């Protein structure tokens, strides 16, 4: 675990520099610049189509970068500048960085050909090279933590949506990520199980110093766990502040309107 003394103080854990993302001819993100500090929990809010999920997918390298640079701990993730030119980074370097990043998806995406335990230990054993017994011990701890200690040998299809998502969270945590990306993790769930999943995440937030980048429509959750909230609109960050300010006294009219709309629905 990094402590404040051995981490370089000035180095943000995620940095977007002049990031632009286009899908075909549609520009989703434009001249996007922001940094996220180590241990910080940041929630992205904004109307659908504002580019929130795209930001997460860019960090996980699930999408190509149209222009600009992304840095993880100061190291270029997709492109780097060499002799004044923008060149792709090596696959090796990229893999080195992405192993520090975990992601939980809206649709859980558990592997149906494996049991719960196998889902959790697969990557730690084969990607990180952890020995099997340690990986299994850790998986049991994590299942305990997400409240599913008795589902070790269950099959994902035999679990409810909320249970599957909690396993997916355990699977991501088993990789000991420095950065955890949460992409609308409760949007596909029945309302009554949303609470369970959010409770697990609140617990993770309270007990670890993992950096979190969160996209969610659960505003009270965002308010509770975030250090900072960024409001996106039309592919740009229009406002970034602590949750208290954003939710009670936003500077921008657009933020006020957006929050009024989503909070009325809630």
């Amino acid at each position, binding site marked *: 675990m990094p402590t404040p003394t051995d981490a370089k103080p000035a180095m943000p854990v995620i940095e977007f520099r002049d990031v632009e993302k286009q899908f075909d001819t549609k520009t989703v993100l434009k001249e996007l610049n922001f940094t996220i500090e180590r241990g910080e929990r940041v929630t992205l809010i904004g109307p659908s189509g504002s580019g929130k999920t795209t930001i997460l997918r860019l960090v*996980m*390298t*699930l999408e190509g970068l149209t222009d600009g640079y992304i840095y993880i701990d100061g190291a270029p993730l997709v492109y780097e500048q060499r002799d004044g030119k923008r060149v792709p980074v090596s696959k090796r370097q990229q*893999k080195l960085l*992405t*192993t520090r*990043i*975990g*992601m939980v*998806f809206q*649709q859980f*995406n*558990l*592997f*149906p*050909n494996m*049991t719960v335990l196998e889902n959790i230990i*697969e*990557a730690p054993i*084969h*990607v990180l090279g952890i020995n099997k017994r340690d990986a299994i011990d850790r998986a049991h701890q994590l299942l305990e933590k997400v409240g599913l200690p008795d589902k070790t*040998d*269950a*099959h*994902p*299809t*035999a679990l409810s949506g909320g249970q599957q998502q909690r396993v997916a969270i355990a*699977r*991501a945590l088993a*990789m000991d990520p420095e950065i955890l990306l949460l992409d609308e993790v409760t949007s596909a769930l029945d309302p009554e199980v949303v609470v369970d999943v959010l409770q697990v995440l609140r617990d993770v937030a309270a007990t670890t110093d993992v950096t979190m980048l969160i996209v969610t429509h659960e505003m009270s959750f965002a308010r509770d766990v975030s250090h900072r909230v960024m409001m996106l609109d039309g592919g740009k960050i229009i406002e970034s502040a602590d949750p208290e300010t954003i939710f009670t006294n936003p500077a921008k009219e657009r933020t006020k309107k957006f929050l009024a709309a989503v909070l009325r629905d809630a």
Partner: protein
Amino acid sequence: MNYLDALVMHGPRLWDGLLLTLQLTVVSGLLAFVVAVVLGLMAGSTKLLVRLPARIIIEFFRGTSLLVQLMWLFYVLPLFGPSLGAMLVAIFALTLNYGAYGAEAVRASLTSVPQGQWEATAALSMSWPHKMRRIIFPQAWALMLPSLTNLWVHLLKGSSIVYIIGMSEFTFELLQLRRTTDWLFALAIVGLVVYFIIALVLTQLMRLFEARSKYKLGRGPSLKEILSPVLTNKISPADEPAAVAPGGAR
């Protein structure tokens, strides 16, 4: 000629023909499967240099007839150099021809594995061989099996074409026997029944593979349950997919 004499005379040849047909079906079938997987994986690649050779091979062998391929390999190729034996030519042509069709089935089923599964492997930083072997292929396997079964049955029936390069497989022997006897009707029935039975065995065997692969994906009963009629009657997988959790036997 009475029945007995004819059978004593032709029986062993008919049997040899049947064995050759089975040999071609099994050997070419297995090799075609390997070719299909290799070409299918290549054809699904995002890299042009990997995809292009696979596409050329697939399109060539799909786009030209098996008959012409056999003629080329057996009669024309020796004019330029190597002369392969009839058996080798037959296996080679059947393998590539059906392998090319199979490759399309493999490629299509790989792309049918939900996008989310590919993304989950990326989020866990799995390498290409790792994710293919452990995550993507096992799921695609369940999807490709029905098509591969079809192709295998096609191969069984299509194998009769090797008579044009002088191979005495089952259909050829059947026709020989017809020429020396007047049992057109009886022999035609034998032809139907024998191919039907072989095809039936192939499809049932593949069904078991399919059931096993579905069970591993958490859909449907285990092989044990399928093979024991008592249990299958009790559990109806179609009604309650969620209730069929795998037992401890995995």
